[in-house]
């Protein structure tokens, strides 16, 4: 059984207008997505800005009011507040935010910041609590004198690690990481990513890794879902997505990643422009008449793509994949 099963999740924001301020329309931030997060794995959720990936993340932690659909955890639907409380869900699922500075209270010392989830859930004695905080600081590689410092006294990478320490304080089973490294420099990014992998190996934590950076996602994730306009476009393993992408949107995203191979520059640019051209010309083939994505069709045991059935299988055959 999967750790978390997300079924047909929808988050719509109402648009009100007119004299009575009635709901006249809605923004479909997330429009019917289904995927499972397995225990101990890193699930990548990729999309451009506005695709609804962060809204999905927030719904999974319970920060967003879900319009319809279910998020099953331990056999219960946690979109209901009562179930979240019963299961201690808010303790088992934690979040790492993109902007480490604004996600740490500037008036609190690091000790209090990291101890906050412990105070909420664990009710330790003063000494035990301090010991645990020191332990956590040690895990993320910070000195004990960090205890009495304030967030602004740390560098970006250190702050992000404090955010990670806070997230792992309650021994969670799942951590939602919303663009955890996009504000960091390359060398610091490497530090944080290595560290996230290390605690995953140590504690068997699952991640829902939300990012727009396909290079980082390739490094971190076993399974990947590509999101576009509130819907899932393609789901698959790392191998499926990076080596056999089927949907034009996925291909376009992959083609846009800058390559560090200087010698291939011209070739890479040509292939990117070719994909871009197909994307512009064949909208009607890949999207339905409302220019929304089709429902997902399975083309192999691990790989699904949002296309009409015939086209999906035809493309999959071209790619030389084994059919399901």
């Amino acid at each position, binding site marked *: 059984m999967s750790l978390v099963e997300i079924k047909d999740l929808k988050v719509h924001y109402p648009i009100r207008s007119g004299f009575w301020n009635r709901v006249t329309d809605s923004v479909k931030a997330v429009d019917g997505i289904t995927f499972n997060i397995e225990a101990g794995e890193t699930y990548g959720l990729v999309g451009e800005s506005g695709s609804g990936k962060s809204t999905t993340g927030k719904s999974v932690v319970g920060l967003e009011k879900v319009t319809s659909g279910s998020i099953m955890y331990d056999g219960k639907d946690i979109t209901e507040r009562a179930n979240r409380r019963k299961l201690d869900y808010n303790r088992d699922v934690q979040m790492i935010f993109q902007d480490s500075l604004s996600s740490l209270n500037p008036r609190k010392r690091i000790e209090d910041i990291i101890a906050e989830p412990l105070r909420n859930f664990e009710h330790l004695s003063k000494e035990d609590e301090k010991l645990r905080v020191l332990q956590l600081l040690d895990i993320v590689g910070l000195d004990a004198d960090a205890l009495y410092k304030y967030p602004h006294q740390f560098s970006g990478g250190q702050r992000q690690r404090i955010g990670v320490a806070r997230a792992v304080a309650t021994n969670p089973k799942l951590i939602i990481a919303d663009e955890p490294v996009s504000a960091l*420099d390359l060398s610091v990014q490497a530090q944080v990513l290595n560290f996230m992998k290390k605690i995953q190996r140590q504690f068997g934590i699952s991640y829902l890794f939300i990012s727009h950076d396909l*290079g980082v996602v390739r490094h971190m994730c076993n399974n990947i879902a590509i999101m576009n306009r509130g819907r899932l476009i393609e789901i698959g393993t790392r191998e499926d997505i990076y080596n056999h992408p089927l949907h034009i949107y996925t291909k376009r995203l992959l083609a846009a990643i*800058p390559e560090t191979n200087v010698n291939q520059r011209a070739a890479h640019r040509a292939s990117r422009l070719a994909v871009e051209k197909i994307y512009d010309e064949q909208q009607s083939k890949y999207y339905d008449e409302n220019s929304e994505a089709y429902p997902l069709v399975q083309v192999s045991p691990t790989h699904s793509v949002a296309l009409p059935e015939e086209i999906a299988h035809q493309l999959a055959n071209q790619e030389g994949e084994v059919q399901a």
Partner: protein
Amino acid sequence: MRDILEKNTLGGISVDTAANFLTIKDVSTAFKINGQFYDAISHVNLQVHHDEILAIVGESGCGKSTLATTIMGLHDAAETKITGEIDFEGTDLLQLDEDGYNQYRGDKIGMIFQDPLSALNPLKRIEDQISEVMDYHTDLSKDAKHARVLELLDQVGIVNPQRTARQFPHELSGGMRQRVIIAIAIACKPDLIIADEPTTALDVTIQAQILDVLRDIQKENHAGIILITHDLGVVAETADRVAVMYAGQIVELGSAEQVFNTPEHPYTRSLLRSMPQRENENDDLYVIKGNVPSLQKMPSQGDRFAPRIPWVPASAHEEHPSMHEVAPGHEVRCTCYKNFQFPDQQGGVTA
């Protein structure tokens, strides 16, 4: 100037006389902190040619943006101390007063900023914001300016220039806003365009489009572009030459091929190694030890990168690290690049 250049290129002769239009000589910029001056960039030497994109790459705090703002003269004279010489087409920019500088800014030198929303005035229509530059630097008629605005918007790849010209910044998407910023920067056909992290706030697909626009504009105007970025991928895709900066100094300078195919300086090699690559999907990434020193703690002597490669013996470094030419046009600071190896390559402990 531009006519000479075109003639020369047409004749197939390399443009030696006009090529070196920006020469930065031994420039240092120091900021005042608690009454004392600290060097944010120190002794930078660079040349920018026409028809090239020079990328300046480095992590935050390495001084790459300071270099840009120094060229643009955007520093408060009371709080900063700038020494050296910036020779732009025969004028030393650093000797100019505010009025003199204004003759250059926006006209001969254009700048593209990182955050397009804060660089645009929310209360003015796009057309007015673009033609504002022309109000200062040209004496075009109203109609001519209008025509030029539409031409510019078209040039930066905006589909419906008529409509966009009438819109306000908040009505545009991030990519469109950045295109408008580029249109403003190139309105007077500048010889030099400084682009400070122009694509950092954008999605990868938009980023690719914006970089295409920059490259096309550079070709059309024969401009020289200084592209400041922390993204090595962007550099590898767009730059002709690359300057790698660390702690206020240029540590490696060369063509894109030289820097990416045969990187020499330990910092460049470390950076390239810490990128997630296809080959090492499941391995840990390489982490550079330690942190970038803060301004106040910047060592004034010796190799500034030395503390981050502690396994390299002190004898491998120079006392006063200088640039060494390893190949024509390829320069590396300090001597520690010779025989440099990562610990795991020597068979030692991994960093």
